[in-house]
């Protein structure tokens, strides 16, 4: 390995980590420094914003740090995506955090560090780095999930997450070790070479390794049957973290999946394609079927996000440059939609403190604006037209079908039709019933307005004119397969 250590490539992450440290510091010494607690989120958001802005400077570069991390359009895509997510989340949830989280310094620091991990997952081009990044993200989330100390569910969720996470990473590691043994290297490029050379000698070892990797990463992506932690963790976690789980950690995992299965493991696609396909089908089926029976909004969204994972796994199954670009497009649309939903839910929760779906009764009366945002978001998740969901799903499924997996995309369409049913359950509560309890109109905070508004705009915009996003995604995919 040539040690070409160009730290300038890592500036955005340094900024993120630095601001994380800064936030911790400020929170710790805020008494001495006479800092207002409210400043901290803005500090964190600012850091993330700067990082995102800086990372834009890396457009069209294609360089690598010590052949551990690639900085190309793919990475840039995700850098921007993740920093954007974290900014939006911080802005959208700071009231919630003030109310429900004691250690806000740690909270925001963790968000930022997790983002670093997520970015490196998408940038890694070598197994060790990838693994460490995964763990960084996971650990941050283990902790973050546990952060509503007043709520015992939070602790339970975190325990489940951490223990099962440990098992999962053990599985993943064992798989990686086998791959390492088979290919004799941890570098994506060299693995690709080795595997292209023919794998007759190690057939079983290889497929076992693949199976373990699929399982391990399937856990992170919460794919059935490795998804079991998801609903519990989502329900126990503080709402912003739930959002983060369903947004960043998922996206990062898929970035990694794209890198790994689209790169080093591509030569042995025949060995893992069917695994992905079967897991995808299982995931779609389970996620959507169980979601039909939920009564808690967090859990509902958890299961629905599982269902969504199924759609994305299809793209991995039928991986190719086209599907990857379609997947990236869908992911972008999905993230925006998802955040819109979550920020709206958070805003409502700040008012009602009620997680049950029936808690949304008559929202159309008391807060029509948020009701609209939620409806748009949920419809978009269900893949309805005029909002992001339809266009992105349509293109994703079409891409998968074009790769010869028509049956898979048909299953997907069935699943997403099914999903509409439970999304409608929420819409029903908001529009069909009068609010029980106080029916007085109320106004969410300005930041909620801004964030939800922005996201709603995004949802609609992607829905009716997804072209720019799609072109970015296509660029990223091109970089990935270059």
């Amino acid at each position: 390995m040539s040690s070409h250590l160009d730290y300038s490539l890592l500036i955005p992450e340094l900024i993120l980590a630095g601001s994380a440290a800064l936030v911790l510091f400020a929170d710790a010494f805020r008494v001495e420094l006479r800092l207002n607690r409210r400043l901290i989120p803005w500090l964190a958001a600012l850091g993330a914003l700067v990082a995102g802005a800086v990372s834009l400077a890396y457009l069209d570069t294609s360089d690598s740090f010590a052949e551990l991390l690639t900085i190309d359009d793919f990475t840039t895509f995700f850098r921007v995506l993740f920093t954007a997510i974290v900014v939006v989340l911080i802005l959208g949830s700071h009231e919630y955090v003030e109310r429900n989280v004691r250690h806000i310094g740690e909270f925001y620091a963790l968000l930022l560090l997790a983002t670093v991990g997520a970015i490196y997952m998408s940038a890694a081009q070598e197994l060790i780095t990838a693994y460490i990044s995964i763990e960084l993200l996971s650990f941050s989330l283990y902790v973050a999930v546990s952060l509503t100390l007043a709520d015992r569910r939070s602790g339970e969720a975190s325990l489940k997450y951490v223990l099962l996470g440990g098992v999962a990473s053990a599985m993943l590691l064992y798989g990686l070790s086998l791959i390492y043994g088979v290919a004799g290297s941890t570098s994506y490029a060299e693995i690709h070479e080795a595997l292209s050379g023919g794998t007759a000698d190690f057939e079983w070892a290889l497929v076992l390794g693949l199976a373990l990797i699929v399982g391990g990463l399937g856990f992170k992506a919460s794919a059935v049957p490795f998804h079991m932690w998801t609903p519990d963790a989502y329900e126990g976690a503080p709402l912003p973290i739930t959002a983060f789980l369903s947004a960043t950690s998922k996206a990062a995992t898929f970035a990694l999946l794209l890198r790994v299965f689209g790169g080093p493991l591509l030569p042995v696609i025949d060995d893992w394609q069917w695994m992905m396909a079967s897991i995808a089908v299982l995931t779609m089926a389970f996620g959507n079927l169980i979601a039909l029976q939920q009564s808690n909004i967090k859990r509902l969204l958890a299961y629905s996000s599982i269902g969504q994972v199924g759609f994305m796994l299809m793209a991995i199954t039928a991986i190719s440059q086209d599907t990857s670009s379609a997947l990236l497009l869908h992911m972008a649309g999905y993230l925006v939609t998802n955040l819109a939903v979550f920020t709206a839910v958070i805003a409502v929760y700040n008012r009602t403190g009620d997680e049950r779906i029936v808690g949304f009764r008559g929202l159309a009366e008391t807060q029509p604006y948020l009701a609209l945002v939620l409806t748009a978001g949920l419809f978009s998740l269900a893949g309805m037209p005029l909002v992001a969901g339809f266009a992105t799903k349509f293109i994703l499924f079409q891409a998968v079908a074009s790769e010869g997996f028509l049956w898979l995309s048909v299953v997907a369409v069935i699943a997403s039709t099914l999903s509409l049913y439970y999304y409608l359950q929420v819409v029903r509560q908001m529009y069909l019933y009068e609010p029980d309890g106080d029916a007085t109109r109320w106004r969410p905070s300005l930041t909620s307005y801004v964030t939800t508004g922005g996201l709603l705009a995004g949802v609609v915009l992607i829905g009716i004119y997804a072209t720019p996003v799609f072109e970015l995604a296509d660029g990223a995919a091109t970089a990935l397969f270059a």
Partner: protein
Amino acid sequence: MTENDGFVLLALFLLPLGSALLLMATPSRERSAIIGITAASSLAMFVLSVYVFLSYDYSGPEQFQGVRAWTWMENVGILGDKGIQLKVGADGIAAAMVLLTGIITLAGTWVSWKVQYRTKDFFILLYILAAGVFGTFVMLDLFFWFLLYETAVLPMYLLIAVWGSTRKEYGAMKLMMMLLAASILIFAAIFAIFTEAGIGTFDLEQLFAADYSTGFQKAAFPAIAIGCGTLGGLFPFHSWSPDGHAAAPTAVSMLHAGVLMKLGAFGIIRLGFQILPEGAEFWAPGLLTLGIIAALYGAISALRQTDLKLMTGFSSVSHMGYVFVGLGTFNAIGITGSVLQMFAHGVMTALFFLLIGAMYDQSHDREIPHFSGMAKQMPIWAAFFIIAGLASLGLPGLSGFVAEVHIFIGAFRAYPVVGGLAVLTAAITATYLLRMFAQSFFGEMHPAWGGLRDMAWTERAGAALLTGAILWLGIWPSPWIDRIATTVQGLQGVTL
């Protein structure tokens, strides 16, 4: 139509969308403003649709007129040149359907001014629906075609569940889920077609031109036929229709039975006949069979219904059955007939629902046996109702006859027996309608309904508009037939 009329076609569905946005902006207190906006935009839509209909040049050389395309995205991912474009254009069929939509939207808007509860939201959703319908008719890009097709279905749920009556939630959910379950098949078909064509574009005209293996066509057509057919109330996928209509508020029933169900048949023509002619030819008999079953089935079920709206719903199933019979004949006369029937049934059934609504809003009762001698209490209402009924039972001189006779002729041409059954159905239709008249309109006036007032002016206007359409088509149908027939004769593989 010249190419610049593409802007008109674009305006056709941007207008309702725009006014929906405008309505969102207006505070819901400003009732007069809302009424003003809706009045203006619905009138504009009507005028535009009439213009489109009239200016379609049926002697002109090209099939699609007013064709205009705006590139949406191309050369990214799976998409090649002209991958997805916003491409509008109308043929004779579309022209007729656009006119239909314009008429019904106008009438529907008028009667909806009576809505008191969340009027603004109602109109927003209604216009989104209208936009979807207009768009589907004029869209020449498969992606947008389907997008708008779904858009037309989307608002249904809330419209019915919030403003509906009786079992509204059940009806709404059932309608929504069944229709979307059906579009699964359309999705599948579209994916398959795009893949099979392999030209990386959703441009319909190119997809028409592309060649598909016969086997593929035979495999893909049923998906489209059932997928779209469900929206068209094709037996046995019709059961959303009666419940949905029974639950829906007036204007929604009007638009839905009047226009939306036509989208289904329209889809079969657009995607089925025009993309997969061989498949269509192969499956035509099947379509015909289901159609005639639906016609008889709906009519016979209607005999037993006591709820006025349910009866109308089943009669819609029956009449849409004619449409499928016409399509199934796969000859020019039959298909022309079924397009005519789409129009005729559209205005006729819209009138039905308008009238039922006008009565139900006051009486909150639709049980036929509960009424008698209504002609005394609400003469104008009864008169309109009888006209609609006569149109529906295919009385010459009214819209129904013109359409049905074409279908009959076409059917006799292909399968005389089916033709005979179709004609028989018309007699059954007469039976249940006349039974209803004799029961509810004539005889001693039931004292309980002494309080009912005759139709409001808006309703009269709407009813008059629709009746006008019924009579016009009935007495002087050539404007329709010329436009439709030229297009139909252009369909590939269709026998004369």
